[in-house]
């Protein structure tokens, strides 16, 4: 007679035990079902929490049933797998009273919980979890306004030298001497991106210098809205520099909104027109290196500025000067030397000092409380 394999005996034993547990003793229901309005939302959400069923390890999951105040029967609104103890019902009507029941399910076996408390969904006017952000924004705003006021009163505000911005005059002068144009690429994002706005601010200052030196500017754009803004910025800059006649509307133009088609177009401009200086200011994606390397191969002086951390190494490698992160935002103030803008810059730096101080203090507290050796508190 053949011997019964061990695995078969084990399987049989497990099945038998499960059968015994499920069909003789049944499964147990979850308990302590609590329902409540989801906080900090636009309404129509109720969160249900429950204590897991003692049979949680063997059941399939939990079915969530709901009953509105004007209904007579429970209706299923969701199902959560075993081990899960909360569910958000996002199909409620604000102001209507609901009760919930959570049912542990295994095949045809069901173990319903007690009915939950009555819950009503509603929308809130204030996001309580964002108080910290609001608080810091107020501090930061206060610092900026404080230093702007100091600047208004004529305080001497020191701003450290930024090599990339110091080189702008030299770069524009070089282009003028060589009789070659200056290329300004304002990034690939739309006008709603702050990097693009910063790029527009810098464009205004650069265009003023170009107008003064009577050099030629080329601004190819990838976004039609940015194109219209850039055109106005350059036009206004030429007017402010006292050279409205020198402005050529053809120097600022729209190319395409396709990423690599734009890269190809700008590469083409660089190889055909051979600009003496290339500015890459704004937010860039994978085309950053394609643009910067092509520019480097033409021998142009290249000044880049981006808050795209991923693309910064490429610009640092391929460009002569790179404005990193926030330096891009500071550039407008730096170039214009406008006291109000410089005041804002100082306020911004003090904001960073506050953050660094908080980080240092919290790090020390964290170390003192969590390191076993230094468990002083």
């Amino acid at each position, binding site marked *: 007679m053949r011997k019964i394999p061990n695995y078969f005996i084990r399987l049989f034993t497990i099945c038998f035990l499960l059968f015994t547990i499920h069909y003789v003793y049944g499964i147990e229901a979850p308990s302590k079902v609590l329902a409540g309005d989801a906080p*900090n*939302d*636009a309404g129509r959400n109720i969160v249900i929490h429950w204590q897991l069923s003692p049979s949680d390890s063997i059941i399939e999951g939990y079915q969530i049933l709901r009953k509105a105040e004007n209904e007579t029967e429970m209706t299923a609104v969701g199902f959560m797998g075993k081990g899960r103890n909360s569910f958000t019902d996002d199909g409620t009507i604000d102001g209507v009273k609901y009760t919930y029941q959570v049912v542990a399910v295994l095949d045809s076996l069901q173990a319903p919980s007690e009915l939950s408390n009555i819950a009503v969904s509603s*929308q809130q*006017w*204030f*996001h309580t979890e*964002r108080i910290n*952000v*609001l608080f810091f*924004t107020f501090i*930061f705003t206060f610092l900026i306004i404080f230093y702007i006021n100091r600047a208004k009163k004529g305080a001497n505000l020191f701003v450290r030298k930024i090599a990339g911005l110091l080189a702008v005059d030299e770069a524009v002068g070089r282009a003028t001497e060589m009789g070659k144009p200056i290329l300004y690429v304002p990034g690939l994002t739309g006008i709603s991106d*702050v990097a693009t*706005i910063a790029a*527009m*601010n810098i*464009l*205004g*200052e650069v265009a003023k210098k170009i107008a003064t030196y009577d050099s030629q500017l080329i601004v190819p*754009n990838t976004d*039609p809205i940015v*194109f*219209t803004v850039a055109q106005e*910025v*350059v*036009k206004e*800059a030429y*007017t*402010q520099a006292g050279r409205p006649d020198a402005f050529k509307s053809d120097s600022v*133009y*729209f190319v395409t909104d*396709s*990423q*690599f*088609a734009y*890269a190809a177009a700008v590469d083409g401009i660089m190889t*055909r027109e051979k600009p003496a200086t290339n500015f890459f200011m704004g937010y860039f994606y*994978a085309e950053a*290196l*394609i643009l910067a*390397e092509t520019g480097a191969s033409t021998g142009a002086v290249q000044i880049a500025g981006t*808050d795209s*951390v991923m693309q*910064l*190494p*490429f610009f640092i*490698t*391929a460009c002569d000067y790179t404005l990193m*992160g*926030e330096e891009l*935002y500071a550039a*407008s103030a730096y170039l214009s030397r406008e006291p*109000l*803008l410089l005041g*804002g810059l100082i*306020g*911004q730096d003090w*904001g*960073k000092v506050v*953050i660094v101080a908080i980080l240092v203090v919290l790090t020390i507290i964290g170390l003192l409380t969590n390191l076993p050796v230094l468990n002083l508190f």
Partner: protein
Amino acid sequence: MKVRLPLFLVLITGILGALPFIIPHSIAQNFDNEFRNTVIRIIGAFSLVLGVGSIIRHHTYKITHKREHWQYSYVLLISLLISAVIGLFGGIDANGWLPTRIGSFNFDIQTLFTYIEVPLGATMFAMLAFFMASAAYRAFRARTFEATLLLIAAFIMMLGSVPLSNYIFPKLPSFAEWILTVPNTAAKRGMGFGISLGTLATSLKIILGIERGWLGGTK
């Protein structure tokens, strides 16, 4: 008026744009969604007309003044015209008024996009590999102390990323991982702080009308 009206609009829209962050109520959220999805889209549609006008004007100027490589402007303008006609009258998938199918040959706008624009874009993207190689060559020349550090870090990273390194020095992959997750992440987070604060400060200065560079000047 030319300056005050834009500044006033920026002040109002700036405040209305920031409020939904702290007001979860549906009035604020719906207004914000409507503004971002509908109003900006309408502005975009109008500016696209200006954009296309700009392309046509720019290349017509090149052709009429016989600027360098002016012949290519013909290619662009003809391509623009053909794709505009096909896109406007042929429908996306050959379901428009204009017939865009001759036997098994399709030339609807989706086909043009899939078989012309996508491969051309992919070709440009593929060139990135060669640009990376030339950039890496320049970056990894140990001319200064910083460049030497970069070279060493890059060498460890590259070696640590290949299975062979496990046989050379078993701890190398974890050391490479440490470089990536600790010093690299620390630097990125530091920059992230600066960028976030810079964004906040710039937004504030624009909303309050202190930063007026986008208007063409600070006066």
